[in-house]
């Protein structure tokens, strides 16, 4: 029914198009409303979010402890910018779906004076974690996920060191809600060991990550001392999957979607298979392993496949004292990208690996397939306790975090957001 007197223009607020330059708080405004629903949860931990390091590459390059590589990179940056040394693969620029998902290409939003408000990246992370209602966020790199495929091994070593230094000395000290993992230059085991020694006691570095896009068998003898050292720290070893279009099998795939759907699962399938068949869980029973960003559907697939074959070919996996699935049920998995289209299958999947105690919420923000915490809270088949565990309490166990609220109240965040627009 038409109004006799239409409302005044002032009572209607126009919402702008979301673009690559949008403020994170506007981008995630709906997540802030969702956060009201889990505001009373003890702890919310996002175990996988990403630095888009392209925007800060000059700073990381500046920390390189190798003068040849540093001069090379600086020279390349002077010439054409970009991310020298990273060995970026063709095709990765398709991530943003031709601009349909703009946050993938950011951030380009304005931030405040770093002298007053902190490092630009810290400011952006604060906007994200407040808006999504997170107590902690664990930061991973983005482009460096492929560094394991760089044929120049020294580049992986020196970039790993520079990245860890930047994260541990520049970023993490500015906000205790931002935590990270040391990048292990896995192509060179002795260098990984040095980083474990260096960061084993660092409270802001809560684990060690193997960026899984690489052709290195994780069961090779050269890594045994490394795993012992990590086990000793009590911190987890985290396998982070990634995309890779240059792998010979994947070069048959003609669309980014196809490569992305398969390759993120592929590398964790391979590393997990080597890990299990070579009985690493028997050799390192106290080493916590976390498998990140392959979704969930692969877990029951691999459990069934390996259980089936191990029963017939025990002589090829003689180190196992139990079925592969039994070991996998003791490992930890990140939740994103959660396959939610068929809830019956998802429920069975979660049951297969005891998600209530083994699943860790992850957003993958700001990547195009990110999951807000509501991806967990809205699942109809999970108990309230399961949701609390998955959203934070499980992560507290794995990453040795105190169960103590650090995030502001959701209503406070919403009030601040409204103020920005008045």
């Amino acid at each position, binding site marked *: *029914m*038409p*109004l006799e007197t*239409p*409302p005044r223009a002032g*009572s*209607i*607020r*126009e*919402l*702008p*198009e*979301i673009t690559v330059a949008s403020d994170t708080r506007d*981008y995630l*405004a*709906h997540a802030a*409303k*969702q956060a009201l629903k889990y505001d009373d949860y003890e702890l919310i931990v996002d175990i996988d979010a990403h630095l888009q390091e392209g925007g800060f590459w000059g700073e990381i390059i500046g920390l390189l402890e190798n003068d040849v590589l540093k001069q090379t990179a600086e020279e390349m940056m002077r010439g054409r910018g970009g991310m020298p040394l990273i060995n970026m693969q063709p095709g990765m620029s398709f991530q943003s*779906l031709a*601009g*349909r*998902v*703009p*946050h993938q290409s950011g951030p380009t939003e304005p931030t405040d004076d770093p002298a007053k408000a902190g490092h630009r990246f810290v400011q952006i992370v604060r906007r994200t974690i407040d808006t999504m209602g997170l107590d902690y966020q664990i930061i991973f790199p983005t482009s460096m996920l492929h560094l394991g495929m760089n044929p120049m091994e020294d580049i992986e070593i020196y970039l790993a060191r520079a990245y860890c230094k930047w994260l541990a000395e520049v970023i993490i000290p500015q906000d205790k809600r931002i935590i990270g993992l040391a990048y292990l230059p896995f192509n060179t085991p002795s260098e990984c060991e040095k980083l474990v020694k260096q960061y084993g006691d660092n409270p802001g570095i809560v684990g060690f990550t193997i960026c899984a896009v690489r052709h290195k068998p994780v069961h090779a003898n050269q890594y045994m001392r490394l795993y012992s050292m990590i086990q000793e720290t009590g911190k987890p070893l985290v396998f982070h999957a990634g995309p890779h279009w240059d792998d010979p099998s994947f070069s048959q795939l003609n669309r980014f979607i196809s490569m992305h759907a398969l390759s993120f699962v592929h590398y964790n399938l391979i590393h997990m298979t080597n890990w299990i068949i070579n009985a690493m869980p028997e050799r390192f029973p106290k080493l916590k392993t976390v498998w990140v960003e392959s979704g969930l559907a692969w877990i029951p697939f691999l459990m069934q496949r390996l259980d089936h074959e191990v029963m017939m070919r025990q002589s090829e996996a003689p180190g196992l004292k139990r079925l592969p699935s039994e070991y996998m049920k003791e490992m930890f998995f990140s939740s994103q990208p959660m396959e939610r289209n068929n809830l019956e299958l998802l429920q069975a999947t979660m049951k297969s690996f005891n998600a209530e105690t083994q699943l860790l919420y992850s957003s993958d923000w700001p990547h*195009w*397939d*990110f*999951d*807000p915490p*509501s*991806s967990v809270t809205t699942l109809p088949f999970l108990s309230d306790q399961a949701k609390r565990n998955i959203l934070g309490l499980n992560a507290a166990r794995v990453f040795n975090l105190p169960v103590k609220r650090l995030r502001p109240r959701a209503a406070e965040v919403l009030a601040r957001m409204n103020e920005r627009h008045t």
Partner: protein
Amino acid sequence: MPDVIVGKAADFADPGRKVVDISGTEIGVFRLGDEFYAYHNICPHLDGPACQGKILPLATEAVCEDKSSTGRIYSKTQTNIICPWHGFEFDIRTGRHPTDGNVRLRPVPVSVRDGDVYVNVPVRN
């Protein structure tokens, strides 16, 4: 709630849109040619701000008579609104996802009278 004016029809680009927050209810109003369409700014996927995304034509596969493909081309007839959170696309005319039509934006009644565009804002619970 009764009808609310969201703007002058002539001020909308073609294709164009205006997303408004009316006392906490967010609505996207779209113009395609002489027609107007309106939807709640809530994506059926994970509640993202679907109406605030990019507007692009539907991408189609150009399959020839012999079943070979010459690649992808944009539709000349269908225009989509794309949720900026993860890229779900919705036909602006129907609000439906091109692959799974059961996934759709929630429509809001919209009308044009005397050059003004009105939406009928549902009463909030």
